[in-house]
Each structure stands twice: as structure tokens, then as C-alpha cells.
């Protein structure tokens, strides 16, 4: 078990080191997410007032779009000089490699979300700090569900042609339930008087989907990546 976690940590550290040297993914993803929120702000804020219920949708769409961008890059990087083959040839558990890549992506998305959430709260006057822990739980579980499927698919797509087009085509239908739950939960939470039982329901549903997605991804990663 410790060895498994060691491998996960090694993959995460490798990704963080590559990222810290050129900051390519972080900067591009962050910029894209911010411009996404800006576009929505132009569309949905009229005369200083946001359209009712738009904020939660904007937040999750920005996360999903920026996440797709990051997912596309995450494995593209492994294609250079056949780095992916090296990674897969290493005598370690394949699921550990998957979890390492996933953790790296989650860290990246956490930074992006920090900025996006603050921006949405600012531009759409969302009551962000009323229930910070519930908001955090929704965001964390929603992102985990999205990224767990996304990491698997983007890993699978590395060897396919037209992968840039196919990633969103495959990823969105599968992850729509997670996005719906995230949007619905956030929407309820940002009401003037939120129905906390409903928030609880959406959060536990998200947890349920996360468990299913993560289990399926860990189970299929090995046979899918084997040549």
C-alpha cells in the first residue's frame, strides 16, 4: 500500500515539477476560465443585476470548460518523446499512475476554481461565504467526479486521432449528471434562504456518482492502457 501511494506521489511530483517549470497548463487554463466567466457576465448581468439563478450555472460551466482544456493537455504532454510508454513500462501498478495524474489535475483545478468562484461571487453577487463548507464539499465532489472520468478518457484518447474533438464529445454526456448535481446543489445553496436538506441530498448524490465513476475508472484503466 505504501508503495502504491509512493507511486501516486511520484507521478504527482513529476507533473508538478513540469508545471512549475513552464506553467503552461495553469496559465492557459486559468486565463480561459476567467474569460469564460467574463463572457457569461456580459450575457447575464444587465444593469448591475444578474439574471436569477445564472451564477451557479456559470460557475459550473466555467469549471467544466476549463477542466476539459486542462484534461486535453494533461496527456498531450506524455506524448512527447513517448513519455507515456515509459510511464506504462514502469514496473508499478497502473491504477497508481491513473491516481497520480488525477491528483495532479485536481490540484490544478483547485487553483482555477479558487479564482473562478471568487470572480463569480464578485460579478454575480453570489452569497459565497454563507455556507463555506457546504460549497467546498459540492465543488470538491463535483470536480472529482468530472476529473475522474476525464482523466480516464483523456488517457484512452492519447493514441486516437482527432482526440481534441473527441474528448468533449465523450466527456460531456457521461459527466452531465455530475454537472447537473453540482449546478442544482449550488443553486439551492445560493438562495436567500437555502433549503439545506436539498443541498445535503445533492451532495450525497455527487458522492455516490464519484464512487461509481472512480471505481469504474480504476477498474478499466489497466486493460484500456495495455497495448
Amino acid at each position: 500500500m505504501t508503495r502504491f501511494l509512493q507511486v501516486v506521489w511520484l507521478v504527482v511530483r513529476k507533473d508538478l515539477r513540469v508545471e512549475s517549470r513552464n506553467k503552461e497548463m495553469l496559465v492557459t487554463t486559468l486565463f480561459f476560465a476567467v474569460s469564460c466567466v467574463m463572457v457569461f457576465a456580459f450575457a447575464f448581468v444587465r444593469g448591475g443585476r444578474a439574471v436569477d439563478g445564472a451564477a451557479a450555472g456559470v460557475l459550473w460551466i466555467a469549471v467544466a470548460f476549463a477542466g476539459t482544456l486542462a484534461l486535453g493537455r494533461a496527456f498531450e504532454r506524455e506524448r512527447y518523446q513517448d513519455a507515456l510508454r515509459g510511464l506504462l513500462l514502469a514496473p508499478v501498478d497502473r491504477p497508481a499512475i491513473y491516481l497520480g495524474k488525477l491528483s495532479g489535475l485536481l490540484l490544478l483545478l483547485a487553483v482555477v476554481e479558487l479564482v473562478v468562484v471568487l470572480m463569480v461571487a464578485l460579478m454575480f453577487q453570489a452569497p459565497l461565504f454563507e455556507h463555506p463548507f457546504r460549497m467546498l464539499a459540492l465543488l470538491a465532489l463535483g470536480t472529482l467526479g468530472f476529473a475522474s472520468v476525464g482523466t480516464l478518457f483523456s488517457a484512452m484518447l492519447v493514441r486516437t486521432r482527432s482526440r481534441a474533438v473527441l474528448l468533449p464529445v465523450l466527456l460531456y454526456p457521461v459527466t452531465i449528471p455530475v454537472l447537473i448535481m453540482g449546478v442544482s446543489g449550488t443553486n439551492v445553496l445560493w438562495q436567500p434562504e437555502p433549503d439545506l436538506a436539498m443541498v445535503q441530498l445533492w451532495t450525497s448524490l455527487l458522492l455516490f456518482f464519484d464512487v461509481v465513476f472512480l471505481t469504474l475508472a480504476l477498474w478499466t484503466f489497466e486493460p484500456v492502457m495495455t497495448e
Partner: protein
Amino acid sequence: MTRRLFPVLAGLSLLFFVGAPVLIVRAPYESTMGLVQKIFYFHFAGWMAMFLAIFVLGIASIIFLFRRIRSADQLAVAAAEQAVIFGLIGLITGPLWGVKAWGVWWQWDARLTMAVILELILVAYLLLRQYGGPGSDRLAAGLGIFAMANVPFLYISTEIWRTVHPRTSVVPTLPVDFGLPLWWSVAGFVVICLAMLSARRRLEEQRATLDELYLALEDEA
């Protein structure tokens, strides 16, 4: 085997489809919805055939992924196409019925949303098969497993949320007058689904053989 199985299945489905209109006409009118309710015999049967196709898709995908059996992959492609077709029947008959029964064509409730999502996943599967190129078969198998994982959610969605859609538990409580034509239609749709599955799988198999022959010919030349 397919060659002998197909005529049997085709004959059986013909029998079911000739019998179905007779049974549906003779079934009593439902007290509140009247004639419109008869669309149920297509709607429910279409979804049942879709579930069958998705389970075939999911299980064939698992077998292909872990055992690398080529024919399982060919069966998966065939099943995905069937699932899209029968899902489309459900998605078309649903609103036709809904506009009469609920007064609206469509409502974004849990059951209807999950049904659309499942159909989207299946269409994505076909897009991947079409445009993925070499190496996309294993990825498609992974997607097939995810599609199958959605079915239980779809099935229980009416039990968790209060939706406009009738609950799944309605079906076993139907009186015989409604039940016989219903299960007859379901049997008809299932048999025709199996017939098309076997024909489509054979086509996929022959296509693969043809590809191999072309490759062998190129090697010789």
C-alpha cells in the same frame, strides 16, 4: 450459428408484429387517457429493447476489454446501434404521449433527463467508433461500460424523485387485459432487437474478415 439463428428470429418477430395490432386493438381503453394510452405498448417495449441492447453492449465491452475477444467487440458495435435506435423510439413516443397525458411535450425531470443523457452517451459511442480511427476499440469498450452503469440510475430515478413520469412499479400491477398486449409487444421488440443484433454482428464480422484479406493481399503484392 448466426446464419441459422437469424431466420428463426426474423420469423418470430414477424409473428409478434402481426399479432401485436390485434391484441392492442382488443385491449380495453384506459379510463382517463383513452386512445392515447395505447402508445404505451410501443413506448415501454422500446425502452425494454434498449435496456437489453445496453446490457449486451456493456457485457460485451467487459469481455472484450479483459479477454480481448474480437467477436465481443463486434457484438458491442451492433448492440450500441440497436440501443440508439430503440432509445430513439422511446424518446419519440414519450413526448407524443406526454403532450396528451401531461399537457407538455417535455419536462426536465429526473427520468426524462437521464434517458436523454443515456441516448447522448450512446451517440457519443457511435461517433467514437466512426471517427476514432485505430485504437479506439478499447476506449469504446470503456465508454460502453460507463453507459451500462447509467442504466440502474435511470431505472430507479422515478423512485428517488417525484417525477411526472409513472413509477416503474406500475408495470407488474397492470390487469391482464393491459398486461398481455404489453408483454406481447415487449417480446416482439426484444426478438426483433435480437434478430438485428445477430445480423449486424455478422456484418461486422465479415467486414473484419474482408479487411484481413485486403491486408494479406497487400502483403503478397
